[in-house]
């Protein structure tokens, strides 16, 4: 059994205070490489703020032991923005809310230019994203042309995030040379109906299975701070561990004007850091990426704490509809922390 109460590890009432779940984490995750289960993750999420430095330290050790010091750097771009028929309550690109985001398509030369500029930052991953339920023929045609043009122009791994796929579309993306596919479960299965009503968690899961079975790398994460309970956050970590994705992008809700979650409070930095560490302890070998919302949730100082608390990948520069801190700031921070940027075609 795990509790969140500190115990007197020394026994004479003097110095060291330890938290049982962190001792379990050292033994089970750090030494043996076995992720924490749902109940253990919940115990981590319930740790008091006093335990945070020790928690981050264990999560960082786990990341260094099972992933190494490299950090994977990625840029993302929106090929088709806005006007989505789905109702994900956090999303400014849904056409169902009164969000100020207008529909737009990026043309192929601009897409290629974005890939070239992303590669120039040192990034090895470039993810093409579209605000759709799933691709139609027009989008697949744009992808065919766009991915071929990027591959002809610059050396960078191309990933995609185009919503729910058919088997045919999975195969076609693999043929184009898309090496990784992002499809977020967003939140736990039990909380999902509070976030999305136009499709189900199970529909997302089945796309993920098709992607994995086709041999593409699976990228699947979500957003924390959408009103889910700590139990549901732990449930989500366990569900991701069951999926065992290659990469988990971790977003913190950035409440967008006009969306149903537009008035949700921003997650406190301490909760965000506890979540990062807890997810690392549930997923010791996964690429755990900082995605959207870190600027407003964590700020500069917290960004650093997360990189020393389990994170081993970043999205640099801007997001899809909002801006990030300059890529140069992140790269300078990585250099300062002696965390080398992962090279192209290296394996974490």
């Amino acid at each position, binding site marked *: 059994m795990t509790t969140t109460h500190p115990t007197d590890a020394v026994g004479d009432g003097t110095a060291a205070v330890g938290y049982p779940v962190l001792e379990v984490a050292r033994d089970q995750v750090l030494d043996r490489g076995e992720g924490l289960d749902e109940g253990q993750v919940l115990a981590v999420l319930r740790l008091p703020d006093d335990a945070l430095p020790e928690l981050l330290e264990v999560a960082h050790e786990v990341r260094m032991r099972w992933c190494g010091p490299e950090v994977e750097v990625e*840029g*993302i*771009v*929106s090929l088709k*923005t806005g006007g989505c028929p789905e109702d994900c309550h956090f999303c400014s690109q849904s056409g169902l809310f009164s969000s*100020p*985001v*207008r529909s*737009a398509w*990026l043309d192929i*030369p*601009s897409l*290629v*230019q*974005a890939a070239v*500029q*992303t590669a120039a*930052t040192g*990034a090895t991953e470039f993810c093409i994203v579209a605000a759709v339920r799933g691709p139609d023929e027009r989008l697949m045609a744009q992808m065919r042309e766009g991915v071929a043009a990027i591959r002809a122009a610059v050396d960078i791994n191309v990933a995609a995030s185009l919503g729910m796929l058919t088997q045919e579309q999975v195969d076609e993306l693999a043929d184009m040379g898309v090496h990784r596919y992002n499809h977020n479960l967003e939140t736990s299965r039990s909380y999902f109906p509070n976030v999305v009503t136009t499709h189900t968690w199970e529909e997302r899961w089945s796309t993920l299975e098709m992607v994995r079975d086709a041999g593409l790398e699976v990228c699947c994460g979500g957003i924390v701070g959408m009103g889910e309970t700590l139990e549901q956050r732990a449930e989500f970590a366990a569900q991701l561990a069951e999926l065992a994705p290659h990469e988990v992008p971790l977003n913190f809700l950035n409440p967008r*004007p006009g969306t149903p979650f537009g008035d949700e409070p921003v997650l406190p930095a301490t909760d965000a850091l506890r979540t990062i560490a807890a997810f690392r302890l549930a997923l010791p070998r996964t690429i755990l990426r900082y995605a959207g919302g870190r*600027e*407003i949730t964590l700020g500069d100082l917290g960004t650093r704490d997360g990189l020393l608390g389990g994170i081993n990948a970043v999205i*640099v*520069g*801007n*997001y*899809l*509809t*909002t*801006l*990030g801190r300059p*890529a140069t700031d992140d790269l300078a921070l990585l250099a300062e922390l002696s965390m080398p940027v992962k090279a192209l075609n290296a394996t974490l």
Partner: protein
Amino acid sequence: MTEDYCARCGEPRDAGEHLACDAALVLEPPRYCVRCRRRMVVQVVPTGWTARCSEHGELRGGDVVDPLGR
């Protein structure tokens, strides 16, 4: 250039406070044209952004380089 409208919320500049909007615009591109309140067509890329009003033209931020030189 006169700023009659808030680039984030689209409300008139002189109607109420826009301190939160102005703070948010550090990490968001403008959404409304400050001259006519039209919603702009915004494209965000990793290293920059463009925002176009059909009446008042295009704004740019970051290092966006237009490969077609438009």
